[in-house]
Structures are given as structure tokens and as C-alpha cells.
């Protein structure tokens, strides 16, 4: 372990700089595909200004597990939106568009996930921003990209559409069962993450040359990129890639098994030492010498794979997950119970690392959020504050960043270009808010 490098990492985060200090991001994003991207940058220290149409704002504000709201806030809103500044800006209005262009002129990155052409219709599209800021980096994230048949048809998309259209759901289920939608919004969250690879590569290019650029990302295409073997397999064999339940068809043995107490454990032991270890742990060392299981490529063949997985399944059925986890450590293979969210939140290792990080938020109080999962020894990413009602930081952004006078700000409110939250759950502040806490300016 690299002791000096990582000593007291969690405790010393706030005595380190942030890697994207000084980078300003403007977002016009809704749901998860949009806001998650700037959310990653915000954890890395970028100053992210989130623009929402007042008074209802981001559609994500309505989403909550079985309608459970955390202190009147959407539970879904929290993870994608830390550390942001929240303005309620109506881009349908010319005055709102003008404010947006003033912000864009001072920004490094613009992120949006509206349908193709909408930003341009609002006079704040890439071509219009180029006129005020030629080195802007602009990313548009959609279901189908900016051009092509589906974009022309103006089809809307969601994560689930991308899970369906990419084939991701098709191969992520048990054989003989209907396609299964993954419970994660994986095409949203992963699409957003992948998009930031492009944004930061573009930032590197801008650091070198001063040039900005336009980036488009389709969430379906992003998730197709993760389905590695599927495409060459279909090309080479002429067969369609199919589902295999919990079995990993590229690694053997690797599957999820049912334990004696009806809990579940995942096991993997593909390389020779690991497989030997597993066979010993099962009390069946002779299996490692069996010609059907003699090396990985042989084990992967269908009839051999089915047989070894059957043998392991029988063994696991007589054991508990704890026993198997212990044996895995002892014999050098991989195993873990299938952890619930309770296991995750209460995990001592994640807490010790600060991945589960304590947020002391002026509006939401204390809770644990996920830290950006790249620990950086010199420039530690971190969550500082959480979500805000629509338009919560209007005064701060108008005054501190754009230098507007009180009169100008008042006029923007009067014409409806600026606005604040509706008195609706998911939009308004928590019920115990005192009308001041968390506001940066205009607390009186």
C-alpha cells in the first residue's frame, strides 16, 4: 500500500486544491443524462451554473422512489447535482436569452440535453454562442444525436429507450424470459460520465491550442460502446448475442449462486491459481485436474461451463455467503454476497475511505452522499453542498458573476426572465427552512 500518498486522505481533502478550479460550466439540463455530467465536473471543482425554467425547473424534481421525498426534495435530484449554483432563467423570453448569452460569454463549457435544434430556436444554440465566445466547449447529449433518421423524426428518448434500442436489456436477463430493464438509469448515468471524457479531452485540446469545439453524444451509442464482444461476436459467428442470466459467458467460472439461507453470492475464479483455490475450498481438488476444466478456454466451452457451474451451485447451496467470502480470502478467488443498499451505506471500508462522505448541507441537513469515486492525491474531488430550490442562487449569479444592478435584477424578475420556485414538493425548500440559511446574497 502506498502509505505516504494516501495517509489521512479523507481528513485532508479540504486542505487541497480542486483540479477544475476556475472552470465555469453552464448547464441547461434535465433528468439524469444532462445534469449528471456537470455534476461530475462540480465534484472536481468546476463552478457549475444550472439554469432551469422557473417555476417548475428540472423534470427530475418530480422523481422519487414510490413517491418518497427527502425533506420535500426529489431523492433522484441529489446525486447528479452537488455543488451547483441554481438559477431560474426562462429561455423562452428574449431577456432570459440575453442573460444566458452573457453567462455563456464568461463560461468555458456549456452542457445541454434538449432535443436537437431547441437551443438554437431559443437563440442560445452553439452557433449563437460562438459569436460571443469562440472558444466555448459545448456538449449536447440526446437519445439519437443531432442528425440521422431518428433525430430528424425528433424522437424523444429516456434511459430505458436506450437500454431497449442498444440491445443492452436484451442480453441482461435470463434465457427464455422477457428483456429486462436495468433498475439503474445506466444509459443516462453512463452516457453522462462518458460525455465528460470527451469534454475533458476537449479541455486539454483547448489548453494546448485555445480552440473550443462542439461535442454530440447519443446515450444509445454510448451504451453500445460498453457491449464489447457482442459486435465482433455477431460479425464472426453470424449468431445473435443472447442472454445468460447471471453467468458471465466470457469468464468461467463466474456466476451468482444461491446459498443455504436463500441469500445470493457471486463467485469468480477464472485463472488457474484461482480455479485451483476454489476447487480446494470446495473440497474437490481433483476438479482442477479434470480435462474438461484444465484451462480457461476449455472451461468456457458451453458444456464444460454448464457442468462446472452446476457443481459449484450444488456446493454453494450448502453454505452461507459469509462462509464463502471467508473461503475466497483464504483460497484466493473472488466472492461476495450480493449486497443490498443497506450493506452499501453501512460499509465500513467505504466510510473509512470517505467514498461515503458526510455532507452538512444548510438546507438538507446531514446525510451521506457518494463522493466522486476517483480519489486524487493532490487535488481531492469532494461534495460540499447539495440541491437547491429553483432559482435559489439568482441574486448571487446576477450580482457576483454578471454584475447586475438591483434595478436590472428587478426588471428581469418583472418580465419573467428570472424566477423562483413554485410552492410544490420537489421545487420548494425543505419545510423547516428559515427563509435565509444557504442563501449567499439577499438574506434579508
Amino acid at each position, binding site marked *: 500500500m502506498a502509505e505516504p500518498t494516501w495517509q489521512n486522505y479523507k481528513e485532508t481533502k479540504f486542505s487541497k486544491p480542486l483540479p477544475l478550479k476556475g472552470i465555469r460550466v453552464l448547464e441547461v439540463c434535465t433528468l439524469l443524462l444532462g445534469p449528471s455530467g456537470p455534476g461530475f465536473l462540480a465534484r472536481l471543482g468546476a463552478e457549475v451554473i444550472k439554469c432551469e425554467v422557473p417555476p417548475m425547473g428540472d423534470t427530475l424534481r418530480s422523481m422519487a422512489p414510490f413517491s418518497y421525498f427527502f425533506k420535500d426534495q426529489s431523492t433522484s435530484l441529489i446525486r447528479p447535482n452537488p455543488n451547483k449554483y441554481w438559477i431560474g432563467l426562462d429561455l423562452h423570453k428574449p431577456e432570459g436569452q440575453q442573460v444566458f448569452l452573457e453567462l455563456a460569454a464568461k463560461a468555458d463549457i456549456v452542457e445541454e440535453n434538449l432535443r436537437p435544434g431547441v437551443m438554437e430556436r431559443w437563440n442560445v444554440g452553439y452557433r449563437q454562442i460562438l459569436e460571443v465566445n469562440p472558444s466555448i466547449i459545448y456538449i449536447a447529449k440526446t437519445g439519437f444525436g443531432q442528425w440521422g433518421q431518428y433525430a430528424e423524426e425528433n424522437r424523444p428518448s429516456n434511459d430505458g429507450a436506450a437500454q431497449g434500442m442498444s440491445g443492452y436489456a436484451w442480453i441482461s436477463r435470463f434465457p427464455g424470459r422477457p428483456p429486462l430493464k436495468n433498475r439503474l438509469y445506466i444509459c443516462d448515468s453512463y452516457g453522462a460520465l462518458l460525455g465528460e471524457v470527451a469534454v475533458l479531452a476537449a479541455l486539454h485540446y483547448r489548453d494546448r491550442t485555445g480552440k473550443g469545439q462542439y461535442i454530440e453524444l447519443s446515450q444509445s451509442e454510448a451504451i453500445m460502446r460498453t457491449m464489447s464482444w457482442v459486435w465482433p461476436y455477431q460479425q464472426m459467428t453470424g449468431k445473435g448475442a443472447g442472454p445468460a442470466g447471471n453467468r458471465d459467458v466470457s469468464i468461467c467460472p463466474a456466476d451468482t449462486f444461491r446459498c443455504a439461507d436463500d441469500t445470493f453470492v457471486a463467485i469468480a475464479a477464472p485463472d488457474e491459481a484461482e480455479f485451483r483455490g476454489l476447487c480446494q475450498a470446495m473440497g474437490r481438488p481433483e476438479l482442477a485436474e479434470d480435462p474438461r476444466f484444465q484451462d480457461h478456454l476449455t472451461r468456457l466451452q458451453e458444456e464444460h461451463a454448464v457442468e462446472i457451474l452446476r457443481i459449484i451451485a450444488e456446493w454453494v447451496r450448502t453454505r452461507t455467503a459469509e462462509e464463502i467470502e471467508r473461503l475466497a480470502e483464504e483460497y484466493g478467488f473472488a466472492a461476495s454476497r450480493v449486497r443490498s443498499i443497506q450493506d452499501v451505506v453501512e460499509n465500513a*471500508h467505504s466510510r473509512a475511505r470517505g467514498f461515503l462522505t458526510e455532507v452538512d448541507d444548510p438546507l438538507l441537513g446531514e446525510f451521506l452522499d457518494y463522493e466522486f469515486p476517483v480519489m486524487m492525491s493532490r487535488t481531492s474531488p469532494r461534495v460540499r453542498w447539495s440541491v437547491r430550490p429553483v432559482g435559489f442562487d439568482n441574486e448571487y449569479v446576477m450580482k457576483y458573476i454578471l454584475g447586475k444592478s438591483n434595478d436590472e435584477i428587478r426588471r428581469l424578475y418583472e418580465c419573467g426572465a428570472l424566477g423562483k420556485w413554485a410552492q410544490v414538493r420537489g421545487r420548494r425548500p425543505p419545510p423547516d427552512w428559515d427563509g435565509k440559511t444557504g442563501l449567499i446574497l439577499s438574506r434579508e
Partner: protein
Amino acid sequence: MEKPRWQDWIRERDDPRIASTQPEALDDITVLDLSYKSFAGCYCSSLLAEFGAEVLRIEPPEGDFIRKCTPYGVLYKGEGLNYLSEGRNKFHITLNLEKPEAREMLKSLVAQADVLIETFRPGQMEAWGIGYETLKAINPRLIYASITLFGQFGPQSHSRMPGYDNVIQAMSGNQYDNGEMLPEGKTYDECPWAVPTKAGPWIGWIVAGTYMAVGILAALHWREQTGEGQALDVSAVEAYTSLEDWAAIWYQGAGVVSERFGNLSIGGWLYCFAPTRDGAVFLGGLRLEMWQAFADMLGKWDEWGAAEWKDLADFSTREEQLKWAERVFAETSQYTTEELVRMAVEYGQHGRLAPITPVVAPVCSPEATMRDPNWLDRGIFTPVQDPVYGEIIVAQAQYKLSETPIRTKWVCRPVGYDNEYIYLKYLGLGPRKLKKLKEAGII
């Protein structure tokens, strides 16, 4: 002159077909990828190589075990299909890090590199004398990126457990509440498919590798400002966990442990897969108007009383979702997938609530996806002309950029294919010296 249509204007600038004529964002960066038994590392270095970074993929003389992780044991020209897709644009060299001479050679490469990616068990690099503290002294600008199961520090970092994708998925929390519900009164023996279900692709590895690419690029930006390198640490489990969106908050706020909910969505209504006459569709309507539009599209505006609906939250509880799902599925089952998809596109143009459009998307097999003219037109499956392997289809061009687009120059390389070129370029080792190193088992 009339302003060109947006979609034509931008296509002219970011169509992957013109990518090769454009500059590359990362062609000033050299990456050493020491990944072993980890697709996370390979994927991470691919993302950088697609942007033009010169990636030196360093394997032991017998090659990385990951090359043998291939579906059903299928090989193509001796190569596993996962690796065939993820060796892209990388130079492949061999180096036996068990040997001290090899470690000295690695240090010489590190002195000339910008980024090092490694996936060994925590402590392994230090045991070899090439840990971050040592390499930092050689090259203070180095960005040293480690991807492991548990991370470089914390109580479990001492574990000797290898980190495979299915175990990452199980540990992340994201498998537990994914999958079909056990039908009432049934047992696992009767329904062995109604269990916690992982995703098919190596998404645990891939998410970890992608996060690390973001971390590396952020560290690179910091280095441009200050000249300082640093060490980066990803736990693959934490990386995949962190894409979870609401369950941790729900548990903390209400004490509820999220459980499987099949093809519906605990996070909200309308958001599900629904059966059709010939397959399935995804239905999405996360704003009240979209759910109303969907009901209207099915001709149920009056019968279901859609005009009176006030708040989507009224439909999002467990009981309401199950009730409405039954009604909706009875309707969708009467149409083909194609019919429903067309009805939604139509509705968005001419429906009562147009341009509000309910999201209706086909649930496809990956075979259908690979044939879909829309994706073919967008260059995702354009075959790569690989100098060694011939014409290969991999997913590529997943983002399109106007100035520095990504490109796939080749898909893969056999083990040690680039030893001659790379060792000559970086270490001045010609054929005679390489022969000796090979005989000594160093490369």
C-alpha cells in the same frame, strides 16, 4: 444566403467519416497501460487512445489473461473477442516485471511518460519497487492511476481478492435490487430467474475505467496549470455504486431497502418495459402531460379520465404502479412494437397534446441494433480495416466532435507485436539487444 439547417451544418463538421482529416486532442500524451486481468484498465486506456494518446500496452511475455476471457471460448485469429475490441490504437509490448532488469526498463519508460495505468493488487507495485513514491521521484509530472476492487487504502485494501466484473456488480449494490420479482406464492426453485440479476456487459469494469479516464483528464488539466502530477485511486466497486441514483438516500431518509421491481421503475411512473404482440417496448412519460399523451395515444383519454389527472406522484406508489401496469400492458399487447413506435411519432406531430410526445422505443436484440440503418448511418458499426485482423466490427465513434473527433486506427495487436518499434523509439534498443532481452525472459 440562407443559413444551413442546424443538423446539416453540424453533420458537415462532426460526421465520423471525416474524422481522419482532423487533429487529435491527446496526441501529445504518452500512456503506459500495465493492466492485468482487468478490463477496467484496458477500457480506460482505449478511451485515451481513441483521442490520439500514444498508449503503450505492457503485458507479461505470455500476454494478459484478459485476452482469454472471451464468450463461450470463441477466438478469432487466436484472439478473445473482448480484447479484440479493446486493443484499439494501442502499441503492444511485453515486459516481465518479475525481473529486476525489466523494472529498470519500466522506470526509463516512466521518465518519458505522462500517465501510468495499473490494476495490480494494492501493494504489488511497491513490492516490485515501482510504486508511486518511487516513480514520482523519477517523474514528478507522472499521473499514476490505479484501478482495483477495493482501492489503495482503507481496511479492505489489504484483501488479496481478485476483482472480476460479476463480483464488482454484486458488491456495488446494483445487482441486489435488479431483476424480476418472485411471483406471489412461488419459490426460487420454481422461478430460478426471479433473483438478483446482474447486467450482461462488463459494466462494473467499464464504469470504473471510464471514471478513471475522467480522473486522468482532470489531473492532466491540473498538470497543465501547475506542472504537478499525482496518484489516482479508483475502487471499481465504489465507481459502479456511485451511478446509483436514489436508493442510498431512500435508505437513509426512510429506512427502506430497495428491492427488485422487475420491468417497472421504483423511481417513477411512467417508466417501464411493456409487452407487445411481437416483443416489448419501453414506455417513458415522466411528466404528467406525457403520461396523459400516452393514454390519449391508446384512445383511453376518456375511459381513464386523463383530463382529471393532477400529479404523477399519485401514480408512482407501488400499488398504483402495479395496478396501472396491468391496464397499460393489456393495451400494448394488442399492438406490434413497430405500430406503437409509429403511433408515438405520429402523436408528437398531430396528437391532442402535440408536440408532447410519449416516449415509445423498441426493445431490440443486439442483432437488430447492428442492422439498424440509423446507427449504420451514424458510423457506430463502420468496420475497421485492421492491419492484422482484417475487417472487424466494434462499436466506435460513440461521441462526435467537431474539432478533435475520435477514431479507430486498429482494433488489436498480438502479444508483443510492437516490441521492436517501441523499444527502439523509447529505449534505443535495436534487434540484437532485444534478442538478448528476450532470451533472458525480460521481454
